[in-house]
């Protein structure tokens, strides 16, 4: 026990004497928590729309005003021809073109970023549709029908459609039924993207702090040659590895506290579930990542090697965890990997506790999975450390 105490003291001395590490440990969570929620906005907004208005009617001008007033869009300007607007898209100055010709609307969106393209074009068609519905109320429906029929004659779409009386009725019916569907959004009522991302940020900060620092630890001692001095002492494998792990758990405890405080102070976001569960989850994640880092450190010969291997695993673990994209959308082979991905359990559980306000009962499954994976990794970390080189 005494040995363990001295070993831990040695680890802390090593961390403190490094000019860079203490500053990193303190500054990193603060910087990440203060900046990243502003960056990680997957919301679609500020889409630049170019309008090619050939009709020059009152309606089309009203539409342009509506687009400029919407907070999704920025009005990029009127262009006289479609190809001129296209040039703007190619230069990257505009994202969407709206062409108004003979009462028909053509929306062309730059879909290199698929989400942005499709959502932008959906929002725009919604605005156009609302504008048309207002026209219908103004009794302009017949005029519109005429336009549709004219469009049909031009066969631009290559498909026939008839704006018959029955068709119109069915449209009306469709609209009324659609309005009957009401939506209740649970947990994140204001649709605040920050609330969704902040638990994910906890995970990222914990992962980087408790993952990378241990990775560089043992291999650093190897390169410096100090590990040989430990190897010839009677220190047991268990106490050596445990002394390496415990400082990172303490760092993790500090980091998660800073993160929670900042989320509360800066963004006013607090967990809706029990706080102690968040700490338990964070410690289990720290157990996994610190053990994992030490395993890689044990098997590596140089820092560079260790860093690259760790980086590789971290990127895969992070991308496949459902941190950014829903795991259910993945193809089945990728979904299978989430069963052994501790980050997936952590993200699921912390979002349940933090956003959905779940308790122990709701996340029992994730907790036990995390604990299992963590325990296996800790044993492996001890086993992989060899005292004789």
């Amino acid at each position, binding site marked *: 026990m005494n040995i363990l105490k001295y070993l831990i003291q040695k680890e802390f001395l090593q961390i403190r004497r490094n000019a860079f590490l203490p500053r990193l440990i303190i500054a990193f969570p603060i910087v990440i928590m203060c900046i990243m929620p502003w960056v990680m*906005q997957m919301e679609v907004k500020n889409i630049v729309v170019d309008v090619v208005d050939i009709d020059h009617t009152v309606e089309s001008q009203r539409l342009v005003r509506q687009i400029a007033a919407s907070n999704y869009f920025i009005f990029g300007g009127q262009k006289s021809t479609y190809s001129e607007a296209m040039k703007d898209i190619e230069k990257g100055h505009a994202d969407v073109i709206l062409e108004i010709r003979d009462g028909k609307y053509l929306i062309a969106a730059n879909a290199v970023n698929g989400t942005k393209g499709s959502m932008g074009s959906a929002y725009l*068609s919604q605005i156009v549709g609302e504008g048309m519905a207002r026209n219908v109320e103004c009794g302009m429906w017949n005029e519109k029908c005429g336009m549709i029929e004219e469009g049909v004659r031009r066969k631009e779409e290559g498909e026939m459609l008839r704006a018959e009386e029955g068709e119109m009725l069915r*449209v009306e019916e469709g609209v009324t039924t659609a309005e009957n*569907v009401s939506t209740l959004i*649970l947990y994140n009522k204001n649709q605040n993207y920050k609330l969704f991302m902040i638990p994910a940020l906890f995970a990222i900060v914990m992962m980087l702090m408790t993952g990378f620092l241990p990775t560089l630890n043992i291999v650093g001692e190897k390169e410096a040659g100090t590990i040989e001095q430990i190897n010839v002492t009677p220190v047991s494998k268990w106490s050596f590895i445990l002394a390496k792990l415990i400082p990172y758990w303490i760092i993790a405890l500090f980091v998660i506290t800073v993160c929670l405080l900042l989320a509360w102070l800066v963004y006013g976001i607090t967990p809706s579930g029990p706080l102690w569960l968040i700490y338990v989850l964070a410690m289990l994640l720290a157990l996994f990542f610190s053990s994992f880092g030490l395993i890689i450190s044990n098997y590596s010969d*140089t820092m560079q090697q260790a860093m690259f291997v760790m980086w590789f695993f971290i990127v895969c673990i992070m991308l496949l965890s459902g941190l950014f994209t829903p795991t259910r959308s993945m193809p089945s082979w990728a979904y299978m990997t989430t069963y052994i991905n501790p980050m997936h359990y952590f993200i699921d559980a912390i979002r349940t506790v933090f*956003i959905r306000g779940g308790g122990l009962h709701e996340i029992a499954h994730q907790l036990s999975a995390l604990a299992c994976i963590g325990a296996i990794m800790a044993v492996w970390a001890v086993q992989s450390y060899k005292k004789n080189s």
Partner: protein
Amino acid sequence: MKQFISFVIKEARHILRDKRTMLILFGMPVVLMLLFGFAITTDVRNVRTVVVTANNDYLSQQAIDRLAQSEYFMITHTVSSPQEAERLIRSQKADVAVVFAGRHKGIQMIVDGSDPNMAQQWTAYAQQTMVPLTQHSTPITQHLLYNPQMRSAYNFVPAIMGMLLMLICAMMTSISIVREKERGTMEVLLVSPVRPLMVIIAKAVPYLLLAFAILVTILLMARFVLGVPLAGSLFWIVIVSVIYILLALSLGLLISNVAQTQLVALLLSAMVLLMPVVMLSGMLFPVESMPVVLQWISAVVPPRYYIQAMRKLMIMGVGIGDVVKEVAILSGMTVFLLAIALKKFNVRLE
């Protein structure tokens, strides 16, 4: 010249002997391309749906059938009260609940709103599925240019190129120089008759070749595995990439001047370089959605321009005339960084 070549060979041996790093260097692009191409999607699929229905009438049955048949939704539970449905959503057993209250009360959807984007898409898809609108009811035509199937790979391939080239060039060169400082072999090199500048250039050459090999790997995979079009001219794609690789190398050189130990060099390149690259370059998160201050900061992040230029050249297939701005900024940054790096380069060790 002979000296120079033998120096290049020495450096190449350093790289080739580290099998594990080599494996990661070539495995990384392949794995990342596969992940981003196939696994990382935001498509609406397999949404777990709870049906809440008290009495099974014809209308609700019809809507349920439509949901069950669609590829987007799968009905996992059927319960009798909204409270039960809420409990299921809370414990992550379902994402959406559809409540059929009765003939005249309409349909209510209860959505797990923790992910705002997905919540919106789920609602829209469910509405479309349950209440199919008659086709051609509006004179609105929508076109999705360049990427009609909305494949995320189109967006991510240029981003992966920007990230990997930066990582490999900047991180690897800086570490290899600092390692020689740390081990003391740098002194041996500096007292040799080779000019110090030559030592550094010879160090950069193998990494340049390596980066080039990785570039080719990525382009081949993008074209033949992911089916991403190379719409623009290959010549300009390569030229712009070479400018970017040079930029990354000079950044690496700059870091190696500042850092004295490998740990600092690693952390500097990982935290100071990699984080902004991933976060602020518009790789994952669109720059225009950020607050203005961060948009200004992102204006000095070089990969932003590279990724923009590559998206235009590769995916949109525009001519070089439309990317002049990006290329000019990249070249300017390269010259600037290279000048600083060479000026700060120390011939003597303290």
